[in-house]
């Protein structure tokens, strides 16, 4: 394509937008709503996933041993556990360490009441961290079969709940985005169809002069893509400014949950969100305008 033709196509694409200001605005607004919601859901989901991953990393299976078990046997059990594929890390907590931790967490000023006694004398344990929480059941089954282990504690409830909520949000957002996607395509299609009607005389002259299908159709496809691009860019700017404020607000409002609510910074969110949202906007514009032009402009 010659530069003059490309520039002509681009210029006509912009002209079309300004010729149908109202429809162009409606189209941009709908795409912007679609991309804005998509960006919000994306930010929520990616933060949730981040929190779930962190929560999962903190989920451990704890094993306690039979009374009077030897240190050698504990060591052997530790070696057996390390060999398992489910295990990412294993930590030995001695009886003394368990008692020290308990004292620090719960006894406070009453700590001297127990003197040098260690009520948790038989409570040495292994804390086992998993590669994936979903592997927990198979590991627990294995651990319960090992001779010398008296008790296996597991705590996957929080992580499972977070995962379920994450999926629920993802499905709901997909549904809403899907509906907005089709509405956007419909509006783009209408805007382009009106542009074609407004320019009917010009198109008819172009055809008679010998313009190819490509040259006749390209300005309308460009128009759709520009509307899609603008519709995607505007909400990204809005989300950029809203995100940090929202995160600060949530942190202040729910200070008690600060250990759970660990948010990604805006750049970590935008590194994927920007290209995806822009491609989405341009894609909506391209699909909507291309099919309308094919339908209405049989040259």
């Amino acid at each position, binding site marked *: *394509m*010659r*530069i*003059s*033709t490309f520039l*002509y196509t681009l210029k006509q694409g912009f002209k079309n937008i300004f010729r149908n200001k109202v429809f162009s605005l409606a189209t941009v607004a709908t795409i912007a709503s679609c991309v804005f919601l998509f960006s919000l859901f994306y930010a929520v989901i990616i933060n949730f996933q981040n929190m779930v991953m962190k929560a999962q990393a903190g989920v451990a299976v704890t094993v306690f041993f039979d009374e009077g078990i030897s240190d050698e046997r504990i060591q052997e059990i530790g070696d057996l556990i390390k060999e398992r594929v489910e295990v990412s890390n294993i930590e030995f907590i001695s009886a003394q360490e368990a008692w020290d931790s308990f004292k620090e967490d719960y006894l406070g000023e009453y700590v001297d009441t127990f003197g040098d006694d260690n009520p948790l004398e038989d409570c040495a344990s292994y804390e086992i961290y998993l590669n994936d929480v979903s592997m927990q059941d198979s590991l627990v089954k294995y651990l319960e079969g090992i001779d010398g282990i008296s008790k296996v504690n597991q705590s996957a409830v929080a992580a499972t709940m977070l995962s379920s909520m994450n999926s629920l949000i993802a499905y709901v957002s997909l549904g809403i985005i899907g509906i907005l996607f089709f509405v956007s395509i419909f509006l783009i299609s209408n805007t382009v169809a009106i542009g074609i009607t407004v320019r009917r*005389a*010009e198109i*008819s*002259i*172009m*055809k*008679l*002069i*010998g*313009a*190819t*299908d490509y*040259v*006749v159709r390209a300005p309308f496809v460009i128009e759709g893509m520009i509307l899609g691009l603008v519709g995607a860019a505007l909400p990204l700017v809005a989300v950029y400014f809203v995100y940090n404020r929202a995160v600060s607000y949530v942190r202040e409002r729910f200070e008690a949950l600060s250990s759970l609510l660990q948010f990604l910074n805006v750049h970590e969110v935008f590194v994927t969100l920007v290209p995806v949202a822009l491609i989405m906007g341009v894609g909506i514009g391209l699909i909507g305008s291309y099919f309308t032009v094919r339908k209405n402009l049989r*040259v």
Partner: protein
Amino acid sequence: MIILDDVVKSYSTGAPALDGISLHVEKGEFVFIVGDSGSGKSTLIKLLLRELAPTSGKIIVNNTDLSKIKHSKIPKFRRGVGVVFQDFRLLPDRNVYENVAFAQIVIQKSAKEIRRNVPAMLSMVNLAGKYTAFPRELSGGEAQRVAIARALVNNPPILLCDEPTGNLDPRNSWEIMKLLEEINKNGTTVLVVTHNSEIVNAMQKRVITMNRGVIVSDERRGGYIYED
């Protein structure tokens, strides 16, 4: 240059618009096509531009068989046929220069070619001083000359004119016809559909008269035999 062989064009209802037309136009000819309303003149123009396909028969224009032409080849074919209409069909939001340049842009001529061809064409139709005028600022005769410049800027060997003087006063009508005659003298084959009996009778060119979809006369140096 133009060959029609037993061409029939029927629409869904009523009698055929063209009923077995046969016609030969040689390169460099100047031909008037006359006839009353509904005689099939407009259908003939549309067939020659391949805006319509014939129901039966063969149409060859510029060595292209329009009965068999593929859709993708139509744009290239049309570049060889200039067309001028009664209502000028200029783009109101573009000036004279841009209206003529438009014809070159849409067939993807380079900017350099456009800068060379458009002023030359505007000089030929005596509009060198009106580059920046918009269609609303032009007289009917000037607007039609812009339309002719646009039709000819791509150097088509054939020029079709559908009632080119229909919206013009007698003086402007004569100016346009003189311009078309000059264009014809430079080698372009010119077909003019018209109702203007005065011009047809005065110019003494080939006249094809149509009535109800058939050619009723074809005279080498004819006159206008039908009156509405």
